[in-house]
Every structure is written in C-alpha cells, then in structure tokens.
C-alpha cells in the first residue's frame, strides 16, 4: 500500500475513519458531566455566576485525544500488517517443495521456513498436497505427497545442517519423484550457493522436468566463508572468501578460546571485485595456541567457522644438544637442521648451556611441549627422571642418534634397545650402497607422506631385534632396519631418529620429508589421543558439533562417531557434521570449508524457460494491531485522568495519595525507630568500648542489673586481672561489664556470669547471642555463688541452680561433668586438685570430654577445644574481689589465706585454659615428640 510494505487485513474498516468528523462534533458538544450538588445558598452563588465562565464545550485537546483514540481503534481493527506475504503458488496440482537446508541457509533459515509455511498455507487453502524434499537428506523425501498440515509439522521440526546439500542425490531423487507423481508445480527454496557440478546437474534435472519451477534465491551479498586457518611462526593466517563480489563487504573475524571467550579480533574489508581477502592474527603464540574457533562475526553459517584442533597449535620445542653450540660454524651444529625444519610450525627454545641438567630444567620450566635431544648419550639420574616425568605427563622427546648415543646404547629414554656402535653403509670398506627409505606403512604417523626417494642413509644406529621392534617402528630403510622408532611412555612419546641431525650420516635433514616427518611427530605432543595408534581406523565420538547457524552445540543423538582412516581425511556428512570429535583432552576438528575452497552462486540460466524467480522476504511480517490497541488504551487512561481532573477529583486523589504516602512513611519511620535509633545509639556508645576491647585482652562479666553483684564481679575480675598480671606473662586490660543483650561479645575470650536470683531471665534473642558466642569459641563461667546454701553438701538443688537451669534452658549445652582429675584445667598453669572460690567444696562443672582413650599413664586427657561452659557455685568473684588498695573485700569461708591463693590459682588456670585451649594438654607429649625426633 502506497509503495510501503504495508497491508490491511480488513481494509474496509478504514471507512470508519470517515465518521471521525462526526465524533469530533459530538465530542465538542458534550462537555464532561459535572458533579451534581444540592446547594441551598444558591442565591449567593448566583451573584458569582457572572465571574465564572462555564465551558460549554470540551477543551480542544481533550477532543483531539479522544479522536486520536477513536482513530487508533479503527486502525487497529483494520489490522495493518507490515511486510505482508505475497502468494508463491500459481498453478494447480500437487506441489513439490524442495528446500536447501545446508550450511548456506544458516542466516536465512527463518526466512526459508517462513516462506515454506506460507507455501503450505497456500496449499492448504486450495487443498493441494505437497511433497517435501530436503536436499541434505533427499532420501527421506516422501514418495507420496502429504497434506499440507503434515508437511507443516515436518517443517516445524526441520532445521538446517552444517553440511553441503546433497544435490547429486537430490537430482536422483527428483527424477524418481517426477516419475511417480504428476506434480503441478515445483518450488525450490534454494540457498543460492552452488556445490559445483552436482548443483548444475540438479538444476538441469529441474529444467528437464518441464514442470513450472519457482526458485527462491537469497541475497548472497553478505555470504562469506572462512578458509582453513594456518598457524605460522609469527601469526595465524586465514582467508575469507565470498560468493558475490559486486559490493564492498566489511567484516570482522573473531577468534575464540575453548571457553568461548574472544581472544582476538581482526577487521577486513572485501572491496568491490575482490572475492577473497587474507587476514592474520598477530597475537603471541601462547595466545594463538588457545584459539579453538575462528569465525566471521554475525555470519551465522557453518561455513564462516573454522574449528582448530591440536594440529593447528604451534608447539614450543626445546632443543638440547650434547655439544656446545659453535656459533662460528653454524652449519656443523647438530641443531642447525632441526632448527630450520621445526621453525615453520613451532616455536623453538634452544638451551643456551651445554650442561644437560641445567638445560633440561630450563626447558621444562619454559613449558615446552617437545624436547629435541641431538646426540646425547647419558644424562644424570636426576635429569633422566625429570625428563621421564615430563614424558609421562604427555611430553614428547625426539632424539637423534650420533656418536655419543652410539657409544651408550643402553642409555635411558630410548624407545628400543640399541646395539652398541653404528652401522656404516656404503663407505669405502662396504659393499653396500647407502640405503633409501622404504615407503611408510599404515599405522605409522608418516603414512600418507610421499615416499621420499632422494634420501640416502649411510650411517645409522641399529636396534636390537625383538618382537616389539616392528610395532615401534615408524619408518624403516629399504632393508627393513628402523630409521625412526617410537615408544609410548606414560601419556607421552619418545621418538628416536636413528640418524644424526646433521648431514653426516644421511641427507635426511636436508630433505623436505624431514620437515614433514618432524611436523607430524611434533603434532603428537599433547594430542596422543588423536595419533594413529594402530592399523585400525580411529573412531572418535562427537564432542561438540556445529549447528546450522555455526554455533558449537552438544551433538544430537543421530551424530555418529567420526571414523578417521589413516591418510584419509573424512568429509562432513549428515551423520558426522563439522565439529570437534574426540575428548576434551584430545580432539580433532572437522571443518566444512576445505583449503582454498571458493563459493559460487547457483547458476539457474538454463532454466529460464520454465522458471519463475521468487525472493525471500526479509524480516518477519509485523502486525500493528496489539500496539495500536495498547496506544489507544494508554490514551484512554490519559482521558480518564483528564476527566478526573475536570471533575476536581485529582486534587483529592493527590491529597489522599499524599496522606497515604505520609502515613506509610510515618509507619516506616515508626517501625524503623523501634530499633534503628537504639541500634544507632548503641553503636555510638559502644564503638569506643569495642575498640579498646578489641585491642587488649580483657575479662568481662555479665551485668546482672543488681549493683551489688556487679560491683563484686568487677572487683573480683580486677583482682584476678592483677593476679594474672603479676604471676603470668598475660597482662590483661581492666575488666569490663557487658550487657549480655546488646553488647558485642566477640572481643572477650572469657565471660564471668554470676547468677543473680533477682535478675530477669534473658530473653530468647539474648540467649541466641550467647549461644553464638559459645559456638564461636567463647567460654562462660557461670557462678551460682551459693555453695554455702547447699548446706547438706553437693546434690541438693539450690535456688541458684534452679535459676541457672532456667537461664540455660534455651541453650545448646553439651553434657557436663565435674572437672576430672586429668582435665587440662587441673594443669593449665598451676597444678590443682580442687577449685575453691570464696567457698570450697563446690564442684566446677565443664563439658564432658571424650572418654574413649582412658589410659592410666596419660598425665592429661586429650581433647580438642575448650569447654564453652563452666559452672561453679564457689563464688570465685567473691574470693578474687579486691578494693583499690588491693585489700580483699570478703573473707573466705572457711577463713584461710591459703584458700584465697588457691581461688586465684583456679582463676589463672581457667583463664589459661580458655585462652590457650588444649595447648597444655599437648605439652605433655613434648618428651615423646622430642624422643621421636631423635634429639
């Protein structure tokens, strides 16, 4: 409509727009309904009437708003659709629907599906049957035409694959179908890309059918593929090609590591007339080695993705030679040729010392994957074990023979047993000619390389003949003697070239084959899984495969293991789509795009007689109806607000809203204020206390609320503090009283809690704090101070006990016992056998320690941790209490200075116990430990 891709589902409704002027008139004439009010003093009001201009009409903007609303609703009812679909089918009879579901339709797949469903929709309307053929799997095309709904459900399930369409098979199937069914029309939803001769054949087959054909072709302007990536010494090089070169195409190539994180990004531009362009990643080799996937940004096709496996990694190769590198005669250096052969595909680290021990350490520390040792006979034990370990962990050691090795054939790290000395072929004293290399056998990693016929070997070291030799041999000379042998050691390999690494023994190091062989060998490192390990073909399970949009996904069930036969690189098929095969430790990448592959558009010139061309319609169609209705609703809400405003209600609402907000805020503040201000005040007042408490160790007592009890506790702890300061290395700060309900307890290792009969029992929340304190390692000494009341000795319950039980009811208390004679408390500083306070005779109760090992000869019971709870009735604080002149406040009962001294000692032991824990218990083991240490 009007040149825009806009259509209406029911255009006649638009006629209703003609009524808009009428609505306008009506709206203008109908003012909003006023509020009706009885008002007796109307006479007074009438005097004001002259002042107020009563609007007889709605304001213009309100009318406009309503008109807009009406217009929107009418438009919405008319059902405007952006991008409406054109009809594709034109003829009668069964329809053959052929769909290219290969990689090239990755980006346009949604459009393809849209168009296919449009076609089935049309077929359904005219009651036509449809045959569906998907070109990646033409064999599954149904022989019988299906109803369009069946086809639709098939289409729903269909997705495109990351492989090339099988146009050859499709052509065959097409001919079959044409013979079986009289089609009225063929629709080919092509991906627009030619797969070579097969595609041409398919198009020809279509043309020969003499049935009207409609071909839909996508725009190929942005279709580009990524050719295989090559990891060169300084950079990683790849090529981007495209199908059509008539426009300028800027694109970006991104490299991802195995976690899917982008590592490198490069932009390049394909200018007009340019079909391909080269790009490179210049990142350091360590980074480049982490690249597992390179793709063209936003290409969404499998062709724009290249997966990289171990084979693409550049190994770091360390070189060690037996003789010091002689700079003046580089060509004679045993490492020179190896260096030249390896440098194109790996990074070399040459040990700059001839000390093999240092060199090996050096290289292993540099994280090399491969160590090449040229002519090294023996090595120190330690180095040998180091290198062995390196190999077992997956490293690769390549050794070259030489005079030193020949002289030490029983040396370590050799794949085969060697015969001492070397074999000299074709010298002046020999009948034999220098030997050439035999063709590589299947099972050898070198299999597939051309047999080098320009190589002659004149000297070699020989292997002991045994049964394993032939399976360990990778390359041999014409006479069957091994040239390259290898053996697996742990996860790694040891490979021995039976010649030396310069051209003295053979001209192998001078040849191109040497480079290939070394490359294949180096590829073994850290990818042992993928190495051919025998004659049988390697079967690798799919790890991740590329889906139709070029994304790596877990393989679906129908994907089969990839079978790699030696020397035969597999081709992606429906059952083995491109992707990564193997395990996370070692995998191979199967890519869709081959070396130097180009893509070309499908040529449909031949078909011009019977051909109709169709276009995929870009973008989905878009129905405006819901949006228009939504806008109309919004306008309606606006109108409501306006009407309310006219009726004077808005002010009231605002007032009500403000009131509600105020009430809410007041409520919030009130609810906050119930605890926030107290918490605030608390944090203010307690901050300095907490600071000082955190800085010095000090004892704390629980304030009971009774000033007398608290004063005694303070005086008692002061006495204990002074006593400890004078007798031990611990110098605690002044004791402090804590409010158990509010103060932070974490700073005090030890809480003295006198039980005051009048004090209220702490609430649940407080006891939860106490519980947390105890579980975090604090100890609490409860003192019921009423031993004297239990006149009949222990056993009878006192009021203090009852109170204590009440307090502890909500605590998680372990089983308790009176301090056993071998408890740490009896010896944590002083040796004690009883725990008197102001009174004597009451037991000190502590947590029960394990009684598992009750050995008579152990001086102290072991047991980790500190009893979190101690209970006494002896009134410790009373015994400890002193005044400012250090005079005792209370007489002990019975009165004796000895008892007070013991009471203090008990205090010291308890403090030491709470602070040092079972350290003292462990102390008793010192003689045994010293004895065991042999000192």
């Amino acid at each position, binding site marked *: 409509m009007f040149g825009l891709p806009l259509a209406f589902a029911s255009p006649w409704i638009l006629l209703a727009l003609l009524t808009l002027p009428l609505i306008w008139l009506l709206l203008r004439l109908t003012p909003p309904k006023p509020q009706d*009010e*009885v008002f*007796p003093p109307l006479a*007074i009001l*009438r005097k004001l009437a002259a002042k107020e*201009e009563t609007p007889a009409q709605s304001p213009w903007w309100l009318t406009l708003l309503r008109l807009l609303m009406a217009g929107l609703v009418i438009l919405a009812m008319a059902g405007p659709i952006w991008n409406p679909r054109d009809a594709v089918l034109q003829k009668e009879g069964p329809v053959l629907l052929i769909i290219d579901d290969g990689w090239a339709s990755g980006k346009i797949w949604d459009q393809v599906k849209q168009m296919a469903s449009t076609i089935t929709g049309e077929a359904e309307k005219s009651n036509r049957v449809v045959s569906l053929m998907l070109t990646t799997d033409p064999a599954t095309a149904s022989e019988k035409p299906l109803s369009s709904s069946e086809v639709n459900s098939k289409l729903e399930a269909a997705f495109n694959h990351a492989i090339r369409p099988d146009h050859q098979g499709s052509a065959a199937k097409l001919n079959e179908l044409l013979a079986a069914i009289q089609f009225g029309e063929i629709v080919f939803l092509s991906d627009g890309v030619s797969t070579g001769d097969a595609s041409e054949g398919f198009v020809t087959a279509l043309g020969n059918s003499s049935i009207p054909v409609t071909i839909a072709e996508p725009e190929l302007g942005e279709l580009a593929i990524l050719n295989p990536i090559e990891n060169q010494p300084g950079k990683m090089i790849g090529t981007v090609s495209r199908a059509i070169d008539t426009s300028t195409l800027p694109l970006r190539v991104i490299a991802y590591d195995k976690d899917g994180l982008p590592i490198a990004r490069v932009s390049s531009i394909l200018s007009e007339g340019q079909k391909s362009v080269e790009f490179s990643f210049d990142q350091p080799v360590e980074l480049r080695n982490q690249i597992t996937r390179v793709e063209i940004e936003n290409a969404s096709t499998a062709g724009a993705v290249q997966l990289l496996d171990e084979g693409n990694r550049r190994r770091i190769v360390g070189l060690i030679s037996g003789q010091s590198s002689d700079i003046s005669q580089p060509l004679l250096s045993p490492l020179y040729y190896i260096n030249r052969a390896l440098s194109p595909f790996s990074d070399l680290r040459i040990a700059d010392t001839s000390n093999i021990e240092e060199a090996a350490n050096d290289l292993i520390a540099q994280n090399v994957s491969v160590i090449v040792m040229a002519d090294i006979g023996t090595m120190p034990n330690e180095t040998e074990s180091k290198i062995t370990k390196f190999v077992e962990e997956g490293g690769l050691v390549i050794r070259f023979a030489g005079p030193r090795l020949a002289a030490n054939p029983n040396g370590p790290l050799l794949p085969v047993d060697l015969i001492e000395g070397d074999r000299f072929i074709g010298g002046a004293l020999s009948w034999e000619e220098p030997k050439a290399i035999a063709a590589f056998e299947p099972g050898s990693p070198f299999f597939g390389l051309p047999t080098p016929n320009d190589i002659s070997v004149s000297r070699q070291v020989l292997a002991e003949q045994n049964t394993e030799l032939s399976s360990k041999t990778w390359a041999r000379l014409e006479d069957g003697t091994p040239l390259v042998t290898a053996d697996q050691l742990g996860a790694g390999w040891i490979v021995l070239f039976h010649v030396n690494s310069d051209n003295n023994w053979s001209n192998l190091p001078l040849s191109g084959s040497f480079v290939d062989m070394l490359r294949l060998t180096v590829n073994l490192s850290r990818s042992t899984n993928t190495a051919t390990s025998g004659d049988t073909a390697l079967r690798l399970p799919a790890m991740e495969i590329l889906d139709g949009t070029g994304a790596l996904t877990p393989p679906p069930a129908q994907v089969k293991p990839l079978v790699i036969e030696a020397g035969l690189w597999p081709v992606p098929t429906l059952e083995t789509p491109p992707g990564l095969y193997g395990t996370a430790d070692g995998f191979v990448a199967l890519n869709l795009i081959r070396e130097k592959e180009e893509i070309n558009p499908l040529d449909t010139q031949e078909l011009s007689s019977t051909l109709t061309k169709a276009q995929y319609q870009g973008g989905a169609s878009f129905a405006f109806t819901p949006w228009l209705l939504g806008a109309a609703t919004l306008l309606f809400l606006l109108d409501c607000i306006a009407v309310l405003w*006219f*009726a004077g209600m808005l002010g009231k609402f605002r007032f009500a809203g403000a009131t509600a907000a105020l009430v809410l805020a007041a409520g919030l503040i009130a609810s906050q204020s119930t605890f926030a201000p107290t918490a605030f005040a608390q944090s203010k007042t307690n901050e300095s206390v907490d600071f000082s408490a955190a800085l010095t160790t000090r004892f704390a007592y629980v304030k009971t609320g009774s000033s007398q009890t608290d004063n005694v506790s303070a005086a008692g702890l002061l006495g204990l503090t002074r006593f400890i300061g004078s007798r031990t290395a611990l110098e605690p700060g002044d004791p402090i009283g804590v409010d158990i309900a509010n103060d932070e307890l974490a700073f005090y290792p030890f809480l003295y809690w006198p039980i005051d009969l009048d004090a209220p029992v702490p609430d649940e929340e407080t006891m939860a704090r106490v519980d947390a304190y105890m579980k975090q390692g604090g100890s609490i000494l409860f003192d019921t101070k009423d031993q004297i009341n239990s006149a009949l000795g222990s056993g009878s319950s006192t009021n203090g006990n009852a109170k204590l039980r009440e307090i502890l009811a909500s605590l998680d208390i372990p089983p308790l016992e009176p301090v056993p004679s071998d408890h740490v408390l009896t010896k944590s500083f002083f040796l004690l056998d009883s725990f008197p306070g102001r009174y004597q005779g009451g037991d000190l109760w502590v947590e029960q320690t394990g009684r598992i090992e009750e050995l008579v000869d152990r001086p102290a019971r072991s047991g980790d941790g500190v009893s979190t709870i101690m209970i006494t009735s002896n009134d410790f604080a009373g015994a400890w209490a002193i005044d400012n002149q250090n005079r005792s406040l209370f007489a002990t009962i019975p009165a004796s200075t000895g008892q007070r001294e013991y009471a203090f000692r008990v205090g010291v032991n308890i403090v030491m116990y709470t602070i040092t824990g079972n350290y003292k218990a462990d102390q008793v083991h010192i003689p045994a430990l010293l004895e065991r240490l042999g000192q």
Partner: protein
Amino acid sequence: MSPAIGSQVNADKASDVLVRSRARAALIPDLLVEAQRVANNVFAGWHGRRRRGIGENFWQFRPYVEGENYAAIDWRKSARDDIVYVRDREWQASHTVWLWVDESPSMLFKSGEAAVSKQSRALVLALAMAELLARSGERIGWLGVTPPIVHRHAAERLAAALMVSKTQSTFPDTSLISDHSEVILISDFLGADDQEHALDPAFQAVAEKHVRGHLVQIIDPAEEVFPYSGRVEFRDPETKSQISFGSAQSIRADYQALFAAHCTELSEFAKRTGWSHTLHHTDQLASKALQSLHVDLSASPMRGVR
C-alpha cells in the same frame, strides 16, 4: 465520581408537603428526647428572674414599710425580732414566647461534615427551648401551629401539635403575635431569593411589631466553607434552579466573602431592631446554641423594645 458533598436528607419528593410533614413528624419523638436532654444540660444554669415580684418562690425578707399591705407581713419571722418583716416573693411574670422553625426544603440540607440536617437541628433547638421555657412557666406558642399555652409539658404538647400539622411553605400569619412577646425564629435565612436583602420581608413584618426577636441562623458547614472543587453543578433545593461552575475551587474565596457578608447583614438587621442574632453550625453541639439563645432571652426584657 465521589459522592456529592451535600444532600437533602429525605429522599421523598421535596414538594410534597404532606409527605415531608410526615417525615418530620416521625422525627419529632426522637428530637423531643434529644431536646429534653439538651434542655437538661442547660437548665442546670437556669435561674429565676433575680428580681422581686409576683411569684411563688421566696425571694427575701425586708423591713415593713408604712402603707404596705398587712397581708404581706410574715408574722413568724417578725415574731423573732422587733422589726416587722415582709416576705418578698420572686418576680415570676409569665412571658409569651413564639417559636418558629423554617420548614423550607433548603433546611433539609445536610453535608458530609455535619451530623444532622439543618431542620433537625432547628427542631431540636426549638423544642429544647420550649422545654426550658415550659419549666419556668412561660407561655409558649408555635407560629402557625399552636397558640401560646402554659403547661409544664408544653414541649410535648408542641411536639404533638407539630406531628399533626402540615408543613408550612410560607411564613405563617403573624397576627396572633401580641406586643411585648418574644419571637424565636430559627431558620437558615437563605429563603430570600431577593438579591437585595438578606432577610425575608415576612421577618421585616414581624419586626414592625413591638416584639423581641431572636434570630437563630442555622448554617451547614459546607455552606460556609464551600468545599467544592472541579466542575460542579449547583442546584437550589427550593427553586430547582441550577448553576454550574467549571472550577468551583476558584470561586471559593469570593463565595466565602459573600456568605460572610450575608451573615453580617443579618446581624446588622438584628442590631438595628434590637433583636439578637445567634449563628449556629450544624457540626456544633446543639446545647451551645441553646445556651447562647437562653442568655439572649434572659437579658433585660426592655432592651431594644421600641
């Protein structure tokens, strides 16, 4: 739409006098109870005329003055002393008090802020006044309903008469009002559709007589505060005429000034004629108006009487 601020309390056809009368009659027993309650509150401070005169209650003993009636001598008192005493009685003249309550439809108005309609409050005030006056033995009449009667339960009688009387649509005949009687007129005084004068000409006619008038103006708070906003159509309950304002809140200040002027005019009229003017809002307590009315009533009877 929120409910309207003001309403007419009975939903029956306002023009139907009979129906309205019946509705009013149904209200009266309750109002009477309320009136008695209010009267009791006020009666606590109710005193005699504080002056010697013809009455039943003892007022004072005073020495006999030559020429006085011997019968006036209180011999019992005089026997105790050498002085001859005369027993004075408190003056207890019986006044005629006419009550009238406006019964126009505008009195039925009640806004959300008021507890009762204006008419309900007016009837309560009138009946309470009647109760008070009856207790002190005054003659009480209700204009257009019943001639003045003296009875201990005059309030009940009035109420009974009211219950059977028809609603008056106009100001009743004032010919029965004799000189030197008191007239209590309870109304909203909004009836004058005349834009020049605040007061109905009928009241002017009463004022012509030599009576003491007491104007009790009952106002609904909504009429004074004008709490309307937005687009409002105002309707007069009596004339049914309408007037609408697009933005009621904008004329609030002007209206309030005009209404205040109306009240002032009424007050001026009262001052001129020596009458009293009591302003009562229906959201206030009835006893407050009764108290003030009583004070006005017991002021010097001669003041302002021409």
